[in-house]
């Protein structure tokens, strides 16, 4: 093999109606290197990689593999050229086994007719040992965890003989431990001569894993730099195009009276199994309490119960001393609990409604928005105009449909509605999920402001950095129980261990 790049993109351009997603991007991948592609959401990273994987056709430019120009019209052709991609949303079939998922479309057969399942399992086992990717070939995908699903995706690419591996935001769904394991795997693959493109918008992991980093901003390539000399601040500036505060500036908390109190709360999940077990805690005025935990350890059910969306099976919830254990969502709201839901598109917004309507979801039936059962749309619109300005929502006015906004701006609309209601308690569930650096900075600042106004904030997040940066106290939830309370200065490793059930309940 020559020392030239294994993959080279020359001035790739891709236009979608109304946007130039990729504007004359050059990119080169050397054999055996880990090359990170860094950029905010919408910077064009995924578009570029979908072009390499044959899912999109470029409007201009050239793709060269080992120095030879190629056209990649379909995923099949990309696979033939030794390109494999692990998508951000896994492309796995839940009801099939790991082995079936891996061999799909290039199955070993008996005499070319019958599927040779035993051989499939054997091949998968071989590959999994060779590359150190532990999977159970005969398990059904619906029964395995996220970390294992990702390994299955990587094996899928390797099974097809991939020399170039594209990992699209691979750590977005992983716990810190799983992410560390993934980095080990990536280094192992690199040692076996594979070339890897690592797409991310997380600065820390890019600096940790990549040999070189290419930064994209709004469809254009900013620069390619090597890891030496790359700093998180410098990369953030390249990504966003201005100075970004990566650290959250906040004064020490001045906690007051308990606003939200939870005693021995138990909640069942949709299948009727215990999801939250005998949980007790309190959130006081003027503090942010962070609830850390791996996804699926009862956070969703706990938030639902607090917001009045799910009836607890036992225990008690008090808001400002009033019992709301069995109260409706409306009553909880009226008592001054704001709720930024986990899934803003499904539960935070009515995507088909205008921003003005979305902003009025809580108080459309109160004066001055309506009177005697009549709604006054003009009043909704004029208030919305004020709120959109105050919360810096870009990309639309009061009459724009919510679905037309970017994720970051949608989240700002949700926050605007919840904060404008002047709640005493604010429950923020994964408030920055899927947002980019600039928007995260905004949301974080806003949450600290809410705290400084003397409100009680419960922050539920899967991002440890976020929990540690914002919280005044950290609670760790594991299998539905609070297993410890920590000071925000605690080491990330200790939190990680507690989140996976290890370690004792340490006191701050």
């Amino acid at each position: 093999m020559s020392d030239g790049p294994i993959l080279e993109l020359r001035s790739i351009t891709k236009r979608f109606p109304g946007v130039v997603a990729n504007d004359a991007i050059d990119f080169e991948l050397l054999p055996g290197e880990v090359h990170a592609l860094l950029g905010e959401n919408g910077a064009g990273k995924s578009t570029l990689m979908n072009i390499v994987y044959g899912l999109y056709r470029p409007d201009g430019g050239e793709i060269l593999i080992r120095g030879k120009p190629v056209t990649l019209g379909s995923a099949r052709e990309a696979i033939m050229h030794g390109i494999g991609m692990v998508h951000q949303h896994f492309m796995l079939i839940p009801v099939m086994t790991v082995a079936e998922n891996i061999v799909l479309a290039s199955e070993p057969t008996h005499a070319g007719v019958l599927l040779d399942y035993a051989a499939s399992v054997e091949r998968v086992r071989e590959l999994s040992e060779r590359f150190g990717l532990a999977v159970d070939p005969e398990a059904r995908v619906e029964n395995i965890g996220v970390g294992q699903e990702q390994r299955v995706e990587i094996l899928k690419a390797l099974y097809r003989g991939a020399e170039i591996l594209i990992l699209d935001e691979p750590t977005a769904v992983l716990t810190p431990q799983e992410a560390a394991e993934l980095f080990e795997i990536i280094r192992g693959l690199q040692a076996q001569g594979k070339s890897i493109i690592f797409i991310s918008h997380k600065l820390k992991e890019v600096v940790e894993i990549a040999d070189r980093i290419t930064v994209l901003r709004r469809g254009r390539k900013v620069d390619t730099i090597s890891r030496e000399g790359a700093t998180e601040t410098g990369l953030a500036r390249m990504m966003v195009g201005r100075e970004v505060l990566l650290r959250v500036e906040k004064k020490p908390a001045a906690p007051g009276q308990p606003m939200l109190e939870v005693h021995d709360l138990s909640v069942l999940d949709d299948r009727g199994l215990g999801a939250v077990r005998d949980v007790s805690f309190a959130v006081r005025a003027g503090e942010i309490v962070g609830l850390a935990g791996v996804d699926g350890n009862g956070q969703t059910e706990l938030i639902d119960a607090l917001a009045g969306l799910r009836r607890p099976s036992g225990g008690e919830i008090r808001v400002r001393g009033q019992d709301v254990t069995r109260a409706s969502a409306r009553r909880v709201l009226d008592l001054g609990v704001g709720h930024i839901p986990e899934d803003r598109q499904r539960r935070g917004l009515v995507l088909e409604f205008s921003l003005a309507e979305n902003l009025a979801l809580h108080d459309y039936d109160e004066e001055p928005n309506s009177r005697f059962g009549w709604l006054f749309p003009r009043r909704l619109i004029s208030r919305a105009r004020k709120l959109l300005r105050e919360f810096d929502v870009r990309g639309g006015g009061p009459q724009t449909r919510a679905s037309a906004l970017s994720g970051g701006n949608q989240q700002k609309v949700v926050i605007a509605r919840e904060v404008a209601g002047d709640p005493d308690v604010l429950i923020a569930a994964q408030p920055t999920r899927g947002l980019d650096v600039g928007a995260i900075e905004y949301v974080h600042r806003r949450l600290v402001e809410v705290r400084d106004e003397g409100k009680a904030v419960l922050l539920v997040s899967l991002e440890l950095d976020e929990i540690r940066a914002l919280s005044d106290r950290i609670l760790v939830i594991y299998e539905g129980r609070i297993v410890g309370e920590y000071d925000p200065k605690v080491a990330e490793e200790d939190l990680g261990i507690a989140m996976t059930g290890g370690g004792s309940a340490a006191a701050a």
Partner: protein
Amino acid sequence: MSVRAESVRSGWERATGPRAVGILGIALGALSFWLALPPVHARNTVLPVAVGILGAAAGIWAVSRRERRVGWGAIAAALVGIVGAILATRSSLTHLDIVVFWGALVTATLRWATPLTFAAIGGMFSERSGVVNIGLEGMMLVGAFFGALGADKTGSWEGGLLIAMAAGGALALIHAFFAIHLRADQIVGGTAINFLALGITGYLYVDVYGQQGTPTNLPAIPDVHFNWLQHVPPHQLGSFLDNSFGQMNLMVWLMFPLLIVSYIVMFKTPIGLRIRAVGEHPRAADTVGISVYAVRYSAVVVSGVLAALGGAYLSIGFVHSFSEGMTNGRGFIALAALIFGGWRPFGAFGAALLFGFSSALALRLPDAYGSSAGTLFQALPYVLTLIAVAGVIGRSIPPAAIGRPYKKQ
């Protein structure tokens, strides 16, 4: 106990678990009815009622152990069984012997189940690939008409079958084009297919055959005779076998290889794996280089061809003529059998047998009990389908991407 430990149950626990007991209850309910029928002919109600009560008890036990679906199913089966048994013991023996003539019932059951099975297997290919095929009814009807027309014009039943298959495939192609390419709503598209089939066959029928109807000497798909069956000892078994299987249509026999082949194709070959992958997660299939469109087109066309075979069997294998709208909802029943059978060949076949049995029984009842009883029994498949869809005996889980058009990025 943790969730994980609960899910790892031993085989023994499963065999004595509430679910198994509930299923036993269902079996006991059926047994209580059967005891009152020939050849056992229990003439007093004690034994059937006792067995029925046992079944109901098993059901109640299962319900109390949180196995609600199967448990209630057992209770319902026991009640139906007891009522049926009491009614049967009150009927005269001769009436019962007219209706419950097992040999004839078996052959009639198979005869009625055949068109349903062909269409249901066709539906399985389409739906496993993610395309809802409510147009099975229309495809059967087209098969029935073009089978008759083809047999008439070519002078051979083979020609009839080929032309029926082509017609069914063509109609399916229309459905596929709307559902896959134009991404139209598949229920609406399928309904349109049904009306289109009704219109085309109705028009052509009047145009070609007018008042006379299809000719009486229409070439027919031959029956297969097994005369040696009646000599199987002992005599009773021999005559039962002969009455059941001695003289059946070729298409009935072809149904069995079709079942086996379609099972192997769907679950033991790369083709089947790809069809199922496309029906579960088309984008995943696409990213490994499977053409979602090609798989879906082929699967829908296959479904049309098989449904048309079922229809052709009706016209040139069974009643030897064509009449307008003669499929009379059998495509929908086939769809119900498919769902009832959990989108699997043998499951669908089992359901088709059940529906076929109720049709066979319904046809024999009027001889002894007057026409109203038969009419009532004709409704049985629909009742059973409702019960099945409500999920009494384990809800069937459809392919994940069923009914959802796929758009390539």
